[in-house]
C-alpha cells in the first residue's frame, strides 16, 4: 500500500485554514469569520489524483513560530519533532490575499525548517474588489515555492492545490531568509555544538517561552543549557530576525504585489467606524440582540405548537394501536413524551444558530469581540476571553477548550471558571417552557415580554460571568500579564451553504447529543415512576377505591386518583419526597426536584423528565405545556408554575452548575479536581440562595 502524504495546514488565525481543510477532505468542521475557532489539530483524509491519499492536519492559527499560547505550541511541537507520526511531508501555508505581508512572516519561518512548503493564497475572489494584483511566477521565484491561488468560498483553485501536494517532492526546501546572519558568531558556535541538528530548529527551541510537552526533554534541556546569551539579548536577536524577515517580505511584495486603490471598493472603514463606535457600536449590538430574541419567539411559536401537538397525538395513537402492556406504556408514556421534550425546541435552536452563524460569517462577531474588550479590561480580562464567552452561548465545552489561546494562566483559569455562566443552548429549553408558563403575553414598544425576559436572562448570564471574573481577579493571587490583538476580518456576505451547514450541524448535535441521554433517562424514569415497593404501590387500586368509596367519583376521576397514588408511592415518588424538604422553600414540588436532579446530566433533560413524570400520572392526551400549566401546588394550592416559582426556577438554571460534562472538561483543562469542585459548590450554592430569595420575595 502506498504511503499517505502527511499534509499540515498552517497559517495565521482567520485565513480560512479550516475551509481549506473542509474543501480537501469533504468534512464539515466548524468555520467562522473570526479568529480562534481551531484550538486543536483536526485530521482528515483527502483523495488526490492518481489514487494517492493525503492525511490532512488542520492546525490552530499562529502568527509566527514563536509560541506564546498552548494552541500555538501545538504547531511548533509538530514541526520540530520529526519522529511525530504526523510530521508533515509537506506544509501548506494558508494565507489571506489581503494580509499577505503579515502572513508571509510565518511562511518564511517554516521554509527555514527545510520542510517542503506550498503557499496557498486564499480569498482570491476578493482581489478584484480590493484592486489587488499578484505576479505569481515572480512570487514563486522569490519565495522559492509553488503558489496556489484559491478561493474556498467559490471553490476555486482546490484542484491545483491538490496537484501541488501530490508533486511535493519537486518543491525547494531552501530557506528564503538566512536567519543566522543576525549574529553569525553565535549561530556558528551553535552549529559547532550541535552539528547534527537543523540550525533554525535549535534557534526556535532556545527562544521559545512555552515549555514543550512532546519533544524529547533531554534534547531540549541540552539545547537550553546553550543559552549563552541573556534572555534580553535573545529577545533582541529575535526582534532582529523579525525585522530581517520583513525586509525580505517587503522587497518581495514590492515586485510581485500591487494594489490599485482606485479600483478598490471598500466600505470596511466606514462600517467599522460605526460598528465599533463607543456609543453607536454598543447600541447597534443591543438592537441586534433584541431583534434576535424577538425573532426567535415570533418565528418559532407556530412550529413549536405543531410539534407539541404532534407528540401528544403520537403518544395517544401508540397507546391505542399497540397491544396493551408495560412496553406499550413505556413507549407512550416514557419515550415519546421524553423525546417530545427536546424535539419541540428544534425551531428555536435552529433560529438561534442561524443568527449566530450569520453574525460569525459576516465578520461582525470580531467587532463584537473588539467592543467587549473595552468592557472586559475593566474587569481584569482581555478580549481574548470574549471568544470563549460568546462561544459559550452554544455550549460551554468547546468554549472552555477555546481558552487555550489565552497566554496568561490566571486569565485562562478565570475564563474557564466563569464561562459556564454564559447562557448555553441547553438552558434554552428550560427558559422557553418556563417563560411561556409564567410570563404573560403582551408587548412593550412592540417587543414581547417573553422575548425581553429571554434576553434579560442572557444578559444576566453574561453579566454574572463578568462580575465573577472581576471578583476572581481580585481573589486569585497569580501574577500574569497578557496582550490582546484582535484580527478584524473583512465583511463578507454570509455564504448560504456555510450558514445552512452550521445550523444543521448545531441542531443535529443538540438533538442527537442530548437525545440519546434523554431517551435513556426517560426509560429509567418511566420505570421508576411505574414500579414501586410495598403494599401502598401494589394495592393502590383497593386503597384508593376504599378511601373514596363514600364519594361519588366517576370512573375517570377514580382512575386519576389511582394513577396519582401509584406515582406518589413509586420508586421515583419516594426519592422525590426524600429531597422535597430541600427544594420546597424554593417553591418546587418533588417532581421538579427529580427533574433538577436528572438534568444534572444535561440541562435539556429537565423538560423531558417532567413530560415523562406527568405523562405517567395522567391518562389524558395533553401537550407538555398544558400538562405543566395544569399542575397544582400540593401545599399552597394554585398553579405550581406561577410567577414566583417560575422566576425562582429561571434564576436557579441561570446560575447552577448543572452539567456533568462541563465539570469533566474543566478538570481536564485545569488538570485538577479542585477547580471543578469549587465551581460546582459555589455556582450551585449561589443558584440555590438566589432562587430561594426570588421565591420568598415574589410569592
Amino acid at each position, binding site marked *: 500500500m502506498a504511503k499517505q502524504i502527511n499534509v499540515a495546514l498552517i497559517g495565521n488565525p482567520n485565513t480560512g485554514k479550516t475551509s481549506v481543510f473542509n474543501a480537501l477532505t469533504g468534512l464539515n*468542521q466548524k468555520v467562522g469569520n473570526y479568529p480562534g475557532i481551531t484550538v486543536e489539530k*483536526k485530521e482528515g483524509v483527502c483523495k488526490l489524483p492518481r489514487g494517492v491519499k493525503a492525511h490532512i492536519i488542520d492546525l490552530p492559527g499562529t502568527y509566527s513560530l514563536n509560541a506564546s499560547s498552548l494552541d500555538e505550541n501545538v504547531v511548533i511541537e509538530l514541526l520540530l519533532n520529526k519522529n511525530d507520526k504526523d510530521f508533515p511531508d509537506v506544509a501548506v501555508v494558508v494565507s489571506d490575499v489581503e494580509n499577505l505581508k503579515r502572513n508571509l512572516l510565518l511562511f518564511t519561518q517554516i521554509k527555514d525548517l527545510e520542510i517542503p512548503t506550498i503557499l496557498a493564497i486564499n480569498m482570491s475572489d476578493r482581489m478584484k474588489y480590493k484592486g489587488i494584483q499578484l505576479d505569481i511566477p515572480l512570487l514563486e521565484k522569490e519565495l522559492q515555492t509553488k503558489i496556489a491561488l484559491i478561493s474556498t468560498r467559490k471553490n476555486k483553485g482546490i484542484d491545483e492545490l491538490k496537484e501541488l501536494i501530490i508533486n511535493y517532492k519537486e518543491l525547494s526546501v531552501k530557506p528564503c531568509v538566512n536567519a543566522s546572519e543576525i549574529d553569525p558568531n553565535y549561530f556558528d558556535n551553535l552549529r559547532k555544538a550541535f552539528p547534527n541538528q537543523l540550525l533554525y530548529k535549535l534557534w526556535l527551541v532556545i527562544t521559545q517561552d512555552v515549555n514543550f510537552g512532546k519533544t524529547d526533554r533531554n534534547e531540549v534541556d541540552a539545547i537550553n543549557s546553550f543559552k549563552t546569551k541573556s534572555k534580553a539579548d535573545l529577545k533582541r536577536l529575535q526582534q532582529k530576525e523579525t525585522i530581517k524577515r520583513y525586509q525580505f517580505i517587503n522587497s518581495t511584495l514590492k515586485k510581485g504585489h500591487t494594489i490599485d486603490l482606485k479600483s478598490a471598493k471598500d466600505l470596511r472603514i466606514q462600517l467599522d467606524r460605526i460598528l465599533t463606535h463607543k456609543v453607536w457600536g454598543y447600541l447597534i449590538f443591543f438592537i441586534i440582540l433584541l431583534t434576535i430574541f424577538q425573532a426567535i419567539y415570533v418565528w418559532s411559536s407556530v412550529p413549536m405548537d405543531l410539534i407539541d401537538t404532534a407528540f401528544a397525538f403520537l403518544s395517544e395513537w401508540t397507546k391505542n394501536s399497540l397491544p396493551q*402492556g408495560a412496553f406499550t406504556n413505556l413507549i407512550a408514556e416514557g419515550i415519546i413524551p421524553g423525546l417530545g421534550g427536546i424535539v419541540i425546541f428544534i425551531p428555536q435552536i435552529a433560529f438561534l444558530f442561524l443568527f449566530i452563524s450569520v453574525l460569525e460569517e459576516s465578520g461582525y462577531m470580531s467587532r463584537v469581540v473588539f467592543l467587549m474588550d473595552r468592557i472586559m479590561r475593566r474587569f481584569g480580562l482581555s478580549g481574548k476571553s470574549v471568544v470563549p464567552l460568546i462561544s459559550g452561548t452554544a455550549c*460551554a465545552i468547546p468554549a472552555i477548550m477555546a481558552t487555550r489561546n489565552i497566554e496568561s494562566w490566571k486569565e485562562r483559569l478565570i475564563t474557564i471558571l466563569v464561562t459556564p455562566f454564559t447562557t448555553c443552548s441547553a438552558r434554552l429549553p428550560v427558559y422557553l417552557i418556563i417563560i411561556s408558563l409564567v410570563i404573560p403575553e403582551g408587548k412593550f414598544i412592540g417587543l414581547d415580554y417573553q422575548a425581553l425576559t429571554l434576553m434579560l436572562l442572557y444578559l444576566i448570564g453574561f453579566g454574572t460571568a463578568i462580575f465573577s471574573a472581576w471578583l476572581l481577579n481580585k481573589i486569585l493571587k497569580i501574577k500574569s500579564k497578557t496582550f490582546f490583538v484582535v484580527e478584524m476580518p473583512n465583511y463578507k456576505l454570509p455564504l448560504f451553504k456555510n450558514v445552512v451547514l452550521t445550523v444543521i450541524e448545531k441542531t443535529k448535535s443538540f438533538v442527537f447529543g442530548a437525545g440519546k441521554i434523554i*431517551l435513556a433517562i426517560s426509560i429509567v424514569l418511566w420505570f421508576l415512576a411505574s414500579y414501586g415497593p410495598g403494599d401502598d404501590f401494589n394495592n393502590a387500586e383497593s386503597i384508593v377505591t376504599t378511601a373514596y368509596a363514600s364519594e361519588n367519583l366517576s370512573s375517570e376521576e377514580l382512575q386519576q386518583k389511582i394513577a396519582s397514588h401509584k406515582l406518589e408511592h413509586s420508586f421515583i415518588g419516594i426519592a422525590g419526597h426524600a429531597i422535597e424538604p430541600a427544594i420546597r422553600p424554593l417553591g418546587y414540588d418533588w417532581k421538579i426536584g427529580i427533574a433538577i436532579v436528572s438534568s444534572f446530566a444535561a440541562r435539556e433533560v429537565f423538560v423531558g423528565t417532567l413530560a415523562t413524570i406527568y405523562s405517567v400520572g395522567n391518562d389524558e392526551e395533553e401537550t407538555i405545556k398544558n400538562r405543566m400549566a395544569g399542575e397544582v401546588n400540593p401545599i399552597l394550592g394554585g398553579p405550581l408554575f406561577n410567577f414566583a416559582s417560575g422566576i425562582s426556577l429561571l434564576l436557579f438554571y441561570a446560575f447552577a452548575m448543572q452539567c*456533568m460534562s462541563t465539570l*469533566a472538561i474543566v478538570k481536564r483543562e485545569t488538570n485538577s479536581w479542585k477547580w471543578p469542585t469549587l465551581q460546582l459548590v459555589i455556582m450551585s450554592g449561589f443558584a440555590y440562595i438566589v432562587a430561594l430569595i426570588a421565591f420568598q420575595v415574589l410569592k
Partner: protein
Amino acid sequence: MNNLIQNILVFSALSIAIVFLVRKFIWKPRKVSTKACGGDDGCGCH
C-alpha cells in the same frame, strides 16, 4: 404471553438505558482515538 413479552422488552430497554448512562457518565472504557474534537459535535457536552 403478551404480558411476558412486554415485560421482557421493558427490562431489556431498561438494562440498555442503564448501561448507556453508566458508560456515559460514570465509567468510560479507555479507547485510543485518533479523531480530534471538532468543537461542535462529539464534544461530549450533552
